């Protein structure tokens, strides 16, 4: 057991899997000698050698196209896309190939790849270092989408993703790499070491994909969130004093519907929070699922708190970022509704 921040936990997951399975390979832009622009792969090339951990040309489509081929050969490639904002050039290989291969080949071939990509804003990255594109991947059948909210989950989920025989997009909310940011950008960031989720086993363990976690039990309203927003929601619940049950989805596809439905049936109210733009974001799917499954239990309209339908504006980061104040307002609204 060690105290780890999220970067260390991710690094440890990669380390464990490189050590356990000769077929695991790790690559991406600046991933090799340098260890990645966020240092997630630091030290791994030195430890496992240049053919296990290496740099690639700047071609996200090429990275994932070759990853699929390696997966077909029998490897378990773990590719890094430097920022989620740069995953789009690889969209065709993900949507038309990785996601479809098992199906179209009648199960003869598949793409056991893991795609890691730092996502989300709050780091003054401007519109091309802040995006949360998870929604579009959840629409693509055949892909799994995972977003952890803390070091312990990050390691366990990443190990499960690497071991999964289906393609997994693993988004890492970069704002919480060093500590659980709750949206109060004017207060000092608390490091992970102050929180229990930074206690991470050094060795192998996995957290099953497709299972949500109840981050905070409550009875008044169900709050659905993932990634950074889990911490924002916890703060909002705390600050409003509304007894929200905060559910950390962890995996978006496949979704843990049972946990969601059980909670909403109990609370009768639901707030959905994500950082991505609103229209057709994953919050829309969650809202549809909740109303389909809990219609007769709902006592107020489901509320969505999301990024606005604009690019992430550099200077208006905190007006864009869905912080505890906005979540708090939504909590109050559903309680009144």
């Amino acid at each position, binding site marked *: 057991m060690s105290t780890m921040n999220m970067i260390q936990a991710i690094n440890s997951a990669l380390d464990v899997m490189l050590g356990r399975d000769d077929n695991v*390979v790790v690559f991406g832009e600046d991933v090799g000698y340098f260890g990645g622009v966020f240092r997630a792969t630091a030290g791994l090339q030195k430890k496992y050698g240049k*053919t*296990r951990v290496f740099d*690639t*040309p700047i*071609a996200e*489509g*090429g990275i994932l*196209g*070759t*990853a*699929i*081929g*390696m*997966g*077909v*050969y*029998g*490897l378990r*490639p773990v590719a890094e896309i430097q920022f989620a904002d740069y995953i789009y*050039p690889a969209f*065709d*290989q993900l949507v*038309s*190939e990785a996601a*479809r*291969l*098992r*199906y*179209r*080949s*009648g*199960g*003869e*071939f*598949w793409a056991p790849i893991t795609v890691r990509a730092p996502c989300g804003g709050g780091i003054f990255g401007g519109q091309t270092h802040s995006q949360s594109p998870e929604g579009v991947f959840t629409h693509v*059948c*055949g892909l*799994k989408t995972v977003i952890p909210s803390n070091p312990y989950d990050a390691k366990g989920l990443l190990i499960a993703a690497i071991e*999964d*025989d*289906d393609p997994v997009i693993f988004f890492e909310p970069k704002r919480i790499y060093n500590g659980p940011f709750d949206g109060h950008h004017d207060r000092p960031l608390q490091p992970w070491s102050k929180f229990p989720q930074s206690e991470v086993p050094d060795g192998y363990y996995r957290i099953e994909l*497709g299972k949500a976690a109840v981050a905070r039990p409550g009875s008044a309203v169900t709050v659905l969130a993932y990634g950074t927003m889990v911490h924002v929601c916890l703060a909002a619940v705390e600050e409003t004093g509304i007894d929200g049950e905060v559910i950390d989805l962890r995996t978006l*596809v*496949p*979704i843990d*519907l*049972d946990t969601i439905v059980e909670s909403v049936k109990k609370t009768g109210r639901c707030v959905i929070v994500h950082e991505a733009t609103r229209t057709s974001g994953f919050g829309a799917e969650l809202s549809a699922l909740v109303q389909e499954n809990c219609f007769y239990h709902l006592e107020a309209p489901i509320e969505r708190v999301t990024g606005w339908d604009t690019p992430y504006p550099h200077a208006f980061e905190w007006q864009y970022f869905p912080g505890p104040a906005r979540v708090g307002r939504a909590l109050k609204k559903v309680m009144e509704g």
Partner: protein
Amino acid sequence: MAQHSSSAPSAAPAARTPLRLHIPEPPARPGDKPDFSYVRVPPAGSLPRPPIDAPERALREYAEGLIRVLDDDGRAVGEWDPKLDAETLRQGLRAMMLTRTFDDRMLRVQRQGKTSFYIKSTGEEAVAVAQAYALDPDDMLFPSYRQQGLLIARGHSLVDMMCQIFNNTRDRLKGRQLPIMYSVREKNFFSISGNLGTQYPQAVGWAMASAMKGDTRIAASWVGEGTTAEPDFHHALTFASVYQAPVILNVVNNQYAISSFQAIAGGERATFAARAIGYGIPGLRVDGNDFLAVYAVTRWAAARARANLGPTLIELFTYRAAAHSTSDDPSAYRPLDESQYWPLGDPIERLKQHLILRGEWSEAQQQALAKALDEQVRADLKEAESYGTLGTPPASPKTMFEDVFKHMPPHLIKQRQEMGY
């Protein structure tokens, strides 16, 4: 000098000429006389065969020339002659003929409404068959939709192929794919994609993996010349060059991409083999209708890859004699009889002529073989049809929820139930 910032001065601009946009055109359109004057056909045997470890820089002439072995009389000439024994050549001839017979029969079957779609490879049989022969059976193939000859040359069951085309009860792809989008793992034949070119970087990745593992198997992939414009072509060449992947990247230049002449793909200013030069990869252009030349060039590239000397790009210069697919009508965009003017002839005819010249074959044998193959295809068809044709459900629709993921997640189980299963 001026102390304040000022615009960059430009040299006094001369009166500028208006710009104009160039739009490439094929030499002939419907109603015109076919015109292949743009095809330069060097004599067979004129290019030497370089050692497999020749540096790319020493190989530039191959990117712009045309490697040919069979001359106009059917003689094998020059250093590239692979000196194959007659039995191998007869087998190759047979596989090409079987491919064509299969294609012709399947076209008819589609016309009869027994399947929704078909794609022929007529005129391009040497590409797939000779390349299959030049590779080892455990080398991994990442084809496009026009290399059915690879499967046939590797001895795959025609019945199995037909069952996929019919989407019938024995369709190994469970009715999920458009006809001809084969996937045959046991023949090391990768699942064909409907999206052009995606297999190219995948082949490179497979080859990289083979090299990482100290394996000895290499990969090969195929795209049409039209597809070279897609990003995955560039991805494949970049990654193959950087990591010196043991892969053969083939561009089948059959002059057309549906209705577009190869100039629209960039064939007007450079050959497709020349694309390789910019990546430091050898680019070899070969007469794609010359079985011996295709075989020899592919062997050369395979030997190079196996010796850790990296990738090779091969442009197979050929002609798409048939329509693009059963959805296409080429008379709308090219002269009806154009294929008869194609200067590199027909691959089957040329190999036959060569064998006859060598005294290893005769017109009578050819006719007997054609008849035998036709009968074989008919018999196979009969069997395949007995498992159903278009409209015969391949299996329970229930199966359509399988294989999206390895294990069916709850939402798909629920949707299957919603559908009634």
